[in-house]
């Protein structure tokens, strides 16, 4: 289980924007710091939270650390949506049954 929960990690707008950036390509801290006008240590702090939540992973490339998105970490958030997705799919089927059953009566 991740050390930091996913909801807390993505509650922060800056971290959501970092995730958006990483969704297009893996990036270094320097790359990520540029659009935010933030210090590299501040960005590193956000990346640490995201890493602990299992949303990003890091690897070394020469002298740099490269961060990339770990989509599996978002699975937990998706669970809620998927519950409702199944709910509506089944209700659509129930509506179909209802329409068939009442066809003669209308």
């Amino acid at each position, binding site marked *: 289980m991740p050390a930091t929960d996913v909801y*807390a990690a993505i509650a922060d707008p800056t971290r959501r924007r970092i995730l958006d950036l990483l969704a297009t390509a893996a990036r270094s801290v320097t790359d990520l710091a540029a659009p935010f006008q933030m210090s590299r240590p501040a960005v590193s702090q956000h990346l640490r939270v995201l890493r602990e939540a299992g949303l990003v992973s890091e690897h070394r490339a020469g002298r740099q650390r490269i961060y990339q998105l770990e989509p599996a970490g978002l699975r937990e*958030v998706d669970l809620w949506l998927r519950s409702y997705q199944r709910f509506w799919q089944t209700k659509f089927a129930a509506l179909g049954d*209802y329409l068939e059953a009442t066809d003669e009566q209308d």
Partner: protein
Amino acid sequence: MSRTDSAIRTETLYRHPPHRVWRALTDSDALATWLMPNDFVPELGHRFTFRTQPVPPYFDGVVHCEVTELEPPKTLAYTWCGMPGMNTVVRWELTEIDDGTLLVCTHSGFDLTEESHLKTFRSMSGGWGGRKMVAALDRVLTELAV
């Protein structure tokens, strides 16, 4: 990534004309048969509830709604609040195709990243980041669906 305001879209083509599908969507007794017991009235601004079995302590079994769009027999929308801080909208669109109806349901506004939602999730789940609540809700929605 567009997880900040995710929507669920469900659609089916029924071989029944729009007026019949519309009736199934707007008649309280019909709704109770295929969706949930309710006190729905097809009136703009009408506040109503859907009721089902509660799942303590996460869900009291009541979904609070308010009709926000009503254009027979084409469009119906209502807010859908199943827990504090949940501000989702369910919107139905009916399109006549041949002698049938294409029914599209869009359930939008699942903003898990909003602060109020986060607080709700955490308070309801004792700091578990919503895992227990999501699991419980998943169970009840799956059971309901049967």
